[in-house]
């Protein structure tokens, strides 16, 4: 991992980020940072800009027509707008979408997609990698006998875990999970949460979640995003205490609004 002088201990630094969809600004100049090897939770009601924020980090936001990004996102001190290869940047950042998208390929090919795109060809390498990723996503036992059937035929919860396996397949430095537990039952959710606690040693995790308790369980720091503004970002001990800096945070965390 390369660390430049101006970002000590900052895996991701967001500086004055603004995002417009056409005439409508949805993120109003926010700044925060994510430390290496932490689980950083982002909570907030719908339409707060949580998903858009993630898409700014790996620059898939450019895929949507009419978006304009202002401010800076730095990964390892490097401006994502100025990286040499945006494809390489995206492979450094694993992304799990809220609604699972199994690509119309076999389960094996789904997980092998990113490694192949990056140039991994050896059958043995791929086999090992795919088994490891599927195990980490708690899916291996259910699919090991039918790796060549279509990924889109899996149930919603299985597809979600498939996308997690896929996001791990390119061995990302940062793993972004966007409400990964929407389609999964509580038991599987707990299994994946355990996996995330272990993965923390290998990578930095950004967890966007609607479940306040999930943020409390997993994260070391939590950011409360509301209508494109940061209400509060702090250590969990503060956010989930009786006296966070903002009364809004207290109300949201305790389910009084949102």
């Amino acid at each position, binding site marked *: 991992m390369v660390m430049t002088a101006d970002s000590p201990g900052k895996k991701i630094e967001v500086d004055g980020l603004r995002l417009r969809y056409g005439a409508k600004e949805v993120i109003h100049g926010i700044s925060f940072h994510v430390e290496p090897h932490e689980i950083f939770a982002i909570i907030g009601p719908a339409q707060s800009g949580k998903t858009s924020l993630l898409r700014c980090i*790996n620059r*898939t936001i450019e*895929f949507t027509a009419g978006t304009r990004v202002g401010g800076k996102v730095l990964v390892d001190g490097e401006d994502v707008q100025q990286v040499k290869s945006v*494809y*390489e*940047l*995206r*492979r450094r*950042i694993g*992304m799990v*979408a809220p*609604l699972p*998208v199994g*690509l*119309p*390929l076999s389960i094996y090919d789904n997980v092998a*997609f*990113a490694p*192949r*795109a*990056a140039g991994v060809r050896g059958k043995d390498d791929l086999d090992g990698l795919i088994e490891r990723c599927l195990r980490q996503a708690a899916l291996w036992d259910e699919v090991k006998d039918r790796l060549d*059937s*279509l990924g889109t035929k899996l149930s919603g919860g299985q597809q979600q875990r498939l*996308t997690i396996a*896929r*996001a791990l*397949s*390119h061995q990302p430095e940062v793993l972004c999970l966007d409400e990964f537990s929407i389609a999964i039952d509580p038991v599987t959710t707990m299994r994946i949460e355990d996996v995330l606690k272990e993965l923390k040693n290998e990578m930095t995790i950004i967890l966007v979640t609607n479940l306040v308790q999930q943020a409390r369980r997993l994260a070391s720091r939590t950011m409360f995003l509301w209508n494109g503004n940061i209400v509060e970002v702090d250590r969990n001990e503060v956010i989930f205490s009786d006296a966070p800096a903002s009364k809004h945070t207290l109300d949201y965390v305790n389910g009084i609004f949102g």
Partner: protein
Amino acid sequence: MGDGAIDLAAAAAERRQRASVVARGAASRRRRWELVGESALEWLIRLCGVSAIVFVFGIFFFVLREGAGFLFHGLNLRQFLFSTEWYPTSQSNVRYGVLALIVGTFSVTTLAMLIAVPFGLGAAVFVSEFCSRRMREGLKIVIELLAAIPSVVWGFIGLGVLNPLIQKVFRVPVGLNVLNGALLLALMSVPIMVSIGEDALKAVPDSYREAALALGATRWQIVYRVLLPAAKNGLLAAVLLGVGRAVGETMAVLMATGHAVNIPHSPFDPVRTLTATIAAELGEAAAGSQHYQVLFIIGILLFSITFVVNFTADLVVKGIRKR
């Protein structure tokens, strides 16, 4: 379960009764008309669906009836299918062998598809994935215009433009040959493939593209790793409609392939196709004569070929879906 159903039925009856009390007169009359209209519409749609089947069988039946007499009494089927001698109007030595015509049809169609499939699918991918919105609108108008050109006009282009061009470029004495016909058929089927292929690609949800994008795939990797597998049924349909157009096309190949009954040895040999033979000779054959009936039997043959092509395609698509 049974009690529950009775309860429900009773509740529904009660509701109906109450409704009828509330909505008397105009309202209930309107509802009756709505019901009548709805069932009438249902029958109309059913009729449309059934009529398609009726028409196909009707066409098959009438073509078969015209040719049946000779097909079942007198025609030497082996000679018909495996002889290259086609002398339908000879006084002394009548021969009805259509092998050369079959080979003619297949050679022109195959060459046409070899040209048209890469171009058609490539253009579909370009229009759907790689060009700007403005350019896409322009291209689509031009492509639709191309699909609307009548086949006789294509025939003229074959005679007047491609014929001298082929003579000059390939240094051959005659430019009316397999290559000429295949180029025309390719030009005619590409627009169909592009517009249907583009629809198929556009139908692939954007979430697939975005998921692949997030995995670090380049635009090309998205196309051949995600879009082509996801849209393969639609793309196959696009190709098959192109094939259908090529097999069935008559006028352009009649004018451009040289009209010589001949098994081709190179793309520069003239050939004659099944369709062109029917078009050229039916007007001169006396109604009911053997020659006339043989032309209808060729029609049955064409019908069978299209049926086999469609049926195979269906099996292929089902096979893909099952996996």
